[in-house]
């Protein structure tokens, strides 16, 4: 049993890391921000903590805190031009943002190691730390769902005009979504670099972006369980069938199209909504019968 756990431990750890990034992606999409900047936030967090730990000997906890802060700050900066723009512009600009970050990481060799990246980073993060970070992020996600912030996010996602006409500030809440997405992305970038031994610019490119986006589209944009469902399915697919692992881009492509067309809320959110609809149909019938009973 123990060796079985050990053999599969990396899968669990990577699942937790991906889950963190997925929440970073989700909080943006939840607020109706078409951002794919999570890859960029993750890259910045990862490099920040790797540089602090390997070159300055700073403690891992402080390095990860700094990574989170870097993500937060960049999320805020990005929100300045983007929070007031329409969705398509946000998508284009954040795609470009990721590209700028990756180009910068290649270019600034003196700081980032260029294409070689940063290697021999000690592994300072273990499963419990990852679990704690995921738990913290899930708590915040849950809290958002219960508060006015979550209501504003949900309204913005479903109908921007209506939200504006009810006094929800698009700019402020989109900025908040960017900041949260940046903070979570930076945090998990920091954790990741202290887990995987080495980082390089290429890993934060298009492939990473698509994988995280797929997890959220598949899982769902509105609920706490969406990212868990999405990441779990994506982690298990290659374990179930090797052909699925070898054709991962193809599988991701098919998932993206099929889910967005046939299950636009995603598996997690979709099931939850379906359950609610079924319950409500029963309720509606009951109300109708009751009103018929009283002439």
């Amino acid at each position, binding site marked *: 049993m123990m060796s079985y756990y050990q053999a599969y431990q990396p899968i669990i750890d990577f699942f937790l890391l991906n889950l963190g990034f997925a929440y970073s992606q989700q909080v943006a999409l939840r607020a109706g921000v078409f951002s794919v900047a999570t890859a960029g936030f993750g890259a910045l967090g990862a490099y920040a903590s790797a540089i602090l730990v390997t070159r300055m000997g700073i403690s891992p906890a402080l390095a990860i805190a700094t990574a989170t802060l870097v993500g937060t700050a960049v999320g805020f900066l990005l929100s300045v031009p983007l929070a007031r723009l329409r969705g398509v512009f946000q998508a284009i600009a954040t795609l470009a943002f990721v590209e700028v970050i990756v180009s910068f990481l290649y270019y600034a060799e003196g700081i980032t190691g260029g294409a070689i990246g940063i290697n021999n980073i000690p592994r300072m993060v273990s499963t419990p730390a990852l679990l704690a970070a995921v738990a913290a992020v899930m708590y915040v996600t849950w809290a958002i769902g219960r508060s006015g912030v979550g209501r504003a996010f*949900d*309204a913005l996602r479903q109908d921007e005009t209506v939200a504006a006409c*009810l006094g929800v500030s698009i700019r402020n809440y989109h900025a908040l979504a960017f900041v949260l997405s940046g903070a979570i992305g930076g945090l998990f970038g920091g954790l990741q670099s202290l887990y995987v031994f080495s980082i390089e610019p290429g890993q934060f490119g298009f492939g990473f972006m698509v994988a995280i986006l797929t997890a959220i589209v598949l899982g769902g944009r509105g609920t706490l369980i969406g990212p868990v469902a999405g990441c779990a399915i994506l982690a298990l697919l290659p374990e179930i069938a090797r052909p699925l692992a070898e054709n991962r881009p193809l599988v991701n492509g098919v998932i993206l199209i099929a889910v967005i067309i046939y299950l636009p809320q995603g598996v997690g959110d979709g099931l939850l909504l379906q359950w609610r609809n079924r319950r409500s149909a029963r309720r509606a019938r009951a109300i109708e019968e009751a009103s018929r009973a009283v002439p």
Partner: protein
Amino acid sequence: MPSLRLENVSKRFGGLTAVGDVSLTVPEGTITGLIGPNGAGKSTVVNLITGMLKLTEGRIVLGDEDIGEIGPEEVVRKGIARTFQNIRLLPEATVLENVLIGFHRHETASILAGLLNLPSVWREGKALRKQAEALLERFRMSDYADLPAGGLAYGHQRRVEMMRAVASGPDVLLLDEPVAGMNDVEADELGVIFKDLAASGMGLLLIEHNVRFVTKLCPVVHVLNTGRMIASGPAEEVMRDPAVITAYLGKGQA
């Protein structure tokens, strides 16, 4: 409560005049009617007031404050709420959630408190829920609180939209064809609620197609045709105005 005044308001799209030189007042505590045939520019007027469209000319004043330049989010905070001609609910949210978002501008808990789910947030949440439930009661929608808004019957969806607007606690409420597609019984039920709201001091601007409904509720009615105001005054008077009859029934009938 302050009243809303439009002073010589115009809106042109390119060469096309959608609204030209319109002036009207929505006094507190009354229901003011705005009628006119399809394409007369009624919805444009609403969009101008609520900050969706830029004014070409004129002023929009609430109390003594010019609100003709500010965006939609600000307009709400000044105390103007609206409903939409084609109902726009948040389809994935429940009826209660749709109403709760209406209270948005009154929420005081800080964002940080929201992210951490501090006690202040759940105290406020509880209070808002209570207010929302009271509102549901008033609109006789309590039974539907937990149902997804997207699946409701048409008339009920209209009510949810109205509750959401009322929840924002407006001084002026703009109702864009609120009884379209309803039968007379349903419409009159809503009429009672409107009178009720006006009695509490709120000013209502009722934009309608349904002349019978407007004449019944509104002491003063304005008539818009091809963007121009062609008549204003007490309902019975306005309805006898030949220009209004022409606009509604076509030239041959006048």
